[in-house]
C-alpha cells in the first residue's frame, strides 16, 4: 500500500457543505484523541450538541463491519437472535483475509478426532496456544475459544462447509486437531457462511467503509459514519452517510498487516522490505475508530511473520503449503552463504521468522535462505499447489544437488556435508543439530531435488482491542464495556498472546464472531 488511508481521510474534499462540516468535526474529534481527553469528548458525536447535529440516513439493529469469518458468523447469529443486520465491507469483494486464508481450522474434541481415536481436550489446546503465545495470552478468552471450537465446527457443517476426511497436526500443536477444508481455502468457509447469512436475511453491502463510531451523551454507541460508494484506496471517493444503531455495532474489521504506516510506527524494521500475505484492505482504520472512542488496546505492536513465504511471488501464494507440507518436515532450509541449516524447520513461526530475518548482507539486504527436499518429501503437498509452484517458478526442480547449489549460489561442499548430516539424523530419527522432530524416513538422497527461496512476510496482527468473554469492547479509562460496542476476530488482541498458533485464527474468529452476534443481536436498545 502506497498511501495511508487515514491520513488522507483528513483532507477529504467534500460533496456538500453539510459533509464539509461533518468532516471538520471528524478532524476535530481526531485532534481531541491526540491529547487523550476523557472518553465523552472522544467522538464528535458524543458531545450533546454534536450528537444533535447528526441526521441519520438509515437505521439498523446491528451493524457489522467486515465480511470475513468473524463478521459472517456474527451476521448469522445476530439474525438468528432476531435482529436486522447489515454487514459493511469496504472492499469491492467480500471476505477479506478469510477469503484468501488456507482453510485450516483447529478444533478440540471434533467428531473426526473421536472417530480416529485421537485424544484431545480443551485444556491441551489451551496449553499449546499458551506455549506459542509465550504465556501472554488472555486465558479467559482462550478458554471460551477452545471450548467453542467443536460447536463452531458443527456450525460450519450446518452451512455446508466440506472438510477432508483427515485431521492434520500443525507445528506447535501437540496432537492432530486441524481440520482442513476441501479446497485448502478459507473461501470454503466464508462463502457458504455469507450465503447462509444472506438466506437468513442479513444484508451485505460492499464498497462501504466505516469512518467513525458515533457515541451518544452517555458514551454508548449510537451509530456510525460510513463512506458509501468507497473505491479502495481512494479516500475521496463515495459519500458520507450516518447509520443509527439500535442494538449493537460489531467490529470485525480484521488485521492490519498491510498498514505500512501503522506497522512501521510500531516496529520500524517492518518496512517496505518486508511484504505481507494479507489482502490489500488489511489496514488499521477500524482499530483506530475503536481507539477513538477509548477502547483498550492490547499487544498493538505484535505482528506475526510467516517463515514459509517466498520473495518470488506476491502475498501468500504457493510457498506456505510447499514449505509447510514439504521442505520443512521432510527437508532442510539452509543459509545460502554457508550451505548450513540455521534453525529447526518445524519450530514455531516466531522462532523461524526471527532466524530468517537475521540473514542479511553487510548492507542489510536480505540473503534469502533456500529450502530443499526430494520428490518423496512432496507427498503431502496438494497436487495443484506443487504443480503451480513449479509452473510459475516459485519452486524449482534440479537434476542434481550440484545444479541446485550452483543456481542458488550455495557453496557445494558445505551443502553436501550438511545433507549428509541431515540424512544421518533421519536414519537415527533424532535431529541433534536443531531438534526437529523426524516424522518419516525421507532422505535427501535421490534427485530430482526441489527448492524454494524464502523470506518472511507479515502474516497476522496479534494486537487489537480488549474484549471480555461476551465480546464486548472494554473502555480503557473505566475497564467497563463500551455499551453497544462488540468486536471479534483478528481486530481483537489477547487470545494469541505474542505468537498465534497455526489454524487457531479460524477457531477464534468463528467462536467469538458467533458470541458477538448473539450478544449484539439480543441486546435491548
Amino acid at each position, binding site marked *: 500500500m502506497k498511501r495511508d488511508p487515514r491520513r488522507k481521510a483528513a483532507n477529504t474534499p467534500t460533496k456538500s457543505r453539510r459533509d464539509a462540516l461533518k468532516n471538520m468535526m471528524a478532524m476535530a474529534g481526531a485532534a481531541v484523541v491526540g491529547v487523550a481527553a476523557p472518553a465523552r469528548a472522544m467522538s464528535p458525536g458524543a458531545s450533546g450538541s454534536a450528537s444533535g447535529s447528526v441526521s441519520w440516513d438509515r437505521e439498523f439493529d446491528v451493524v457489522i463491519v467486515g465480511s470475513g469469518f468473524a463478521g459472517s458468523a456474527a451476521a448469522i447469529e445476530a439474525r438468528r437472535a432476531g435482529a436486522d443486520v447489515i454487514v459493511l465491507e469496504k472492499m*469491492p*469483494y*467480500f*471476505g477479506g483475509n478469510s*477469503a*484468501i486464508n488456507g482453510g485450516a481450522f483447529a478444533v478440540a474434541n471434533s467428531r473426526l478426532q473421536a472417530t480416529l481415536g485421537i485424544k484431545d481436550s480443551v485444556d491441551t489446546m489451551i496449553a499449546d496456544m499458551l506455549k506459542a503465545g509465550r504465556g501472554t495470552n488472555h486465558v479467559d478468552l482462550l478458554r471460551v475459544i477452545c471450548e467453542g471450537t467443536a460447536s463452531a465446527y458443527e456450525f460450519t457443517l450446518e452451512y455446508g462447509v466440506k472438510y477432508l476426511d483427515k485431521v492434520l497436526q500443525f507445528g506447535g500443536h501437540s496432537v492432530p486437531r486441524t481440520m482442513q477444508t476441501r*479446497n*485448502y*481455502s*478459507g*473461501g*470454503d468457509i466464508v*462463502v457458504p457462511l*455469507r*450465503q447462509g447469512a444472506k438466506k437468513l436475511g442479513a444484508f451485505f453491502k*460492499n*464498497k462501504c467503509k466505516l469512518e467513525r463510531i458515533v457515541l451518544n451523551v452517555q458514551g454508548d454507541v449510537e451509530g456510525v459514519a460510513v463512506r458509501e*460508494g468507497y*473505491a479502495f484506496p481512494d479516500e475521496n*471517493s463515495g459519500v458520507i452517510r450516518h447509520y443509527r444503531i439500535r442494538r449493537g455495532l460489531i467490529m470485525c474489521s480484521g488485521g492490519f498487516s498491510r498498514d505500512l504506516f501503522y506497522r512501521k510506527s510500531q516496529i520500524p524494521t517492518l518496512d517496505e522490505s518486508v511484504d505481507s*500475505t494479507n*489482502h*490489500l484492505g488489511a489496514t488499521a482504520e477500524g482499530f483506530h475508530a475503536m481507539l477513538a472512542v477509548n477502547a483498550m488496546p492490547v499487544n498493538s505492536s505484535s505482528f506475526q511473520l510467516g517463515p514459509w513465504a517466498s520473495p518470488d*511471488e*506476491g*502475498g*501468500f*501464494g*504457493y510457498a506456505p503449503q510447499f514449505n509447510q507440507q514439504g521442505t520443512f518436515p521432510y527437508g532442510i532450509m539452509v543459509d545460502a552463504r554457508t550451505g548450513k541449516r540455521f534453525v529447526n524447520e518445524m519450530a514455531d513461526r516466531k522462532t523461524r521468522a526471527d532466524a530468517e530475518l537475521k540473514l542479511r548482507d553487510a548492507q542489510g539486504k536480505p540473503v534469502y535462505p533456500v529450502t530443499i527436499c526430494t520428490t518423496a518429501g512432496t507427498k503431502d503437498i496438494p497436487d495443484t499447489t506443487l*504443480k*503451480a509452484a513449479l509452473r*510459475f*517458478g*516459485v519452486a524449482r526442480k534440479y537434476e542434481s544437488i550440484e545444479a541446485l547449489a550452483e543456481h542458488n549460489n550455495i557453496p557445494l561442499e558445505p551443502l553436501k556435508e550438511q545433507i549428509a548430516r541431515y540424512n544421518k539424523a533421519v536414519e537415527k530419527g533424532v535431529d541433534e543439530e536443531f531438534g526437529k522432530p523426524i516424522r518419516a524416513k525421507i532422505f535427501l538422497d535421490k534427485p530430482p531435488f526441489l527448492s524454494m527461496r524464502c523470506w518472511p512476510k507479515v502474516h497476522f496482527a496479534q494486537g487489537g482491542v480488549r474484549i471480555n468473554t461476551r465480546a464486548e469492547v472494554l473502555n480503557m479509562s473505566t475497564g467497563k464495556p463500551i455499551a453497544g460496542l462488540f468486536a471479534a476476530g483478528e481486530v481483537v488482541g489477547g487470545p494469541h498472546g505474542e505468537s498465534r498458533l497455526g489454524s487457531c485464527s479460524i477457531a477464534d474468529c468463528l467462536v467469538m464472531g458467533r458470541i458477538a452476534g448473539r450478544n449484539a443481536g439480543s441486546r435491548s436498545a
Partner: protein
Amino acid sequence: MKRIIRYLTPLFFLAALVTTVSALGVSPSAPSQAAEESAPKEELAYHPSAQARLNMWMQQKLGERTLKKYHYKVHQNGVSCELCHNGQNPTAPADDANCIRCHGSASDMAKLTEERAKENDLPNPHLTKHFGEDVPCTTCHKEHKKSELLCANCHKYTYEKFQ
C-alpha cells in the same frame, strides 16, 4: 453539481471538436456535419469520428482514459454514460448490475470461462475457491484504465483473453 456538469459537457465536446477540426485542417463546414452525426435518430449507430472526438474529450477532461474496443457501441459516442454509471454523471462509479444486463449473471460468466480455464489448467476466474462467484465485475475489469486481475495480488498467472 450534476446539472452543471451536464450543461458543461456539450461545451467541452464542442471545444474538443473545434480542436480536432483545426488540427486536422478540415474546412469549417465540418461542425454542422458533426451536429448531424449526433442527431437523435442516429444515436445508436457507431461513428468512428464521433468516437475519436469523444476519446479526445475524455483525455482532456479525465486524463488518460481508455475505452474498451468492444464497448465502443455500448458507449454510443459518449452520450450514454448512464448505461454503466446509472444515470448519474460519469464521475460516479459504474454499477455491476449494468454489466449483467448484457453479459449475463455471475453464474453465466462462470460457465462461459469454465472450459477455457480448464484447458489452460488455471482456476476459473469467475468461480474461485476464495470468493465463489461474488467478485464484482469492476474489481478486475476496468473500463477507463488498465484492467487488473485480483488474483495477481498473490498468484503469478494471468488470462490470455483478459481485458
